[in-house]
């Protein structure tokens, strides 16, 4: 069989429970109980996802129940979302049903860059202090 498909898909009639890793872009059209970390997740109209999703982009056209942390979330008109959605950018089409807690500013990204910036400031300050003393 010639398989030229390069997209990860959980097909419509499929049921999966377990863990999925290293899936950059994945399409869920079946029923999945898992925790998922990816770059792009698409839950199709017949798709059902129960579990945690951590992704850059999530497009929801089916059912989602769990805790989601994403940069961009797009709930289309057939989306049904329960649980918790942490987002930076959210689009909700008319018809989308949200029965969840929606939290803006997924801080994990800013959280990891802040300590790094602080340490850079410390290094610069101590270097400045040394040159000031040398000048005196």
């Amino acid at each position, binding site marked *: 069989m010639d398989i030229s498909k390069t*997209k990860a898909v959980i*097909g419509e009639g499929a049921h999966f429970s377990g863990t999925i890793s290293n899936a950059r872009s994945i399409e869920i059209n079946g029923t999945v109980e898992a925790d998922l970390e990816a770059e792009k997740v698409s839950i199709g109209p017949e798709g059902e996802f129960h579990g945690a999703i951590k992704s850059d982009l999530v497009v929801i056209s089916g059912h989602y129940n769990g805790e989601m942390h994403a940069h961009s979330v797009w709930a289309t008109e057939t989306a049904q979302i329960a649980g918790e959605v942490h987002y930076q950018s959210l689009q909700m089409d008319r018809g989308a049903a949200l029965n969840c807690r929606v939290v803006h500013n997924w801080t994990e990204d800013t959280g990891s860059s802040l300590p790094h910036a602080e340490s850079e400031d410390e290094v610069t300050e101590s270097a400045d202090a040394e040159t000031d003393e040398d000048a005196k």
Partner: protein
Amino acid sequence: MDGSTNIIQGMVVEGKLDGGEAPVVISGNFSGELNAVEVFLEEMGVFKGTLNADRVELAGDFNGTLTTEELSVGSTAKVDGELRANSLAIELGAEVIGSVGRKS
């Protein structure tokens, strides 16, 4: 989309998968239990665990127990385990270690 489940190269999937009516294509890493109608384990695919299906084509690494009606083991396949099939074909080049028997 024809409804098939496609586990692409690089993906690591662990758990229990029921493929439904559509084919399951594995080019990545699957460990656990798989029940499906038709399964294609591609050349880069690695399967570890239990597989129950009606039709199976192996071209990758299989380690575990396989029960199926029709089984075709391709020349690039490496099999270590128990194969139970009613209709079996093994191509020249395939590496098969284990036991081979009938499903029913």
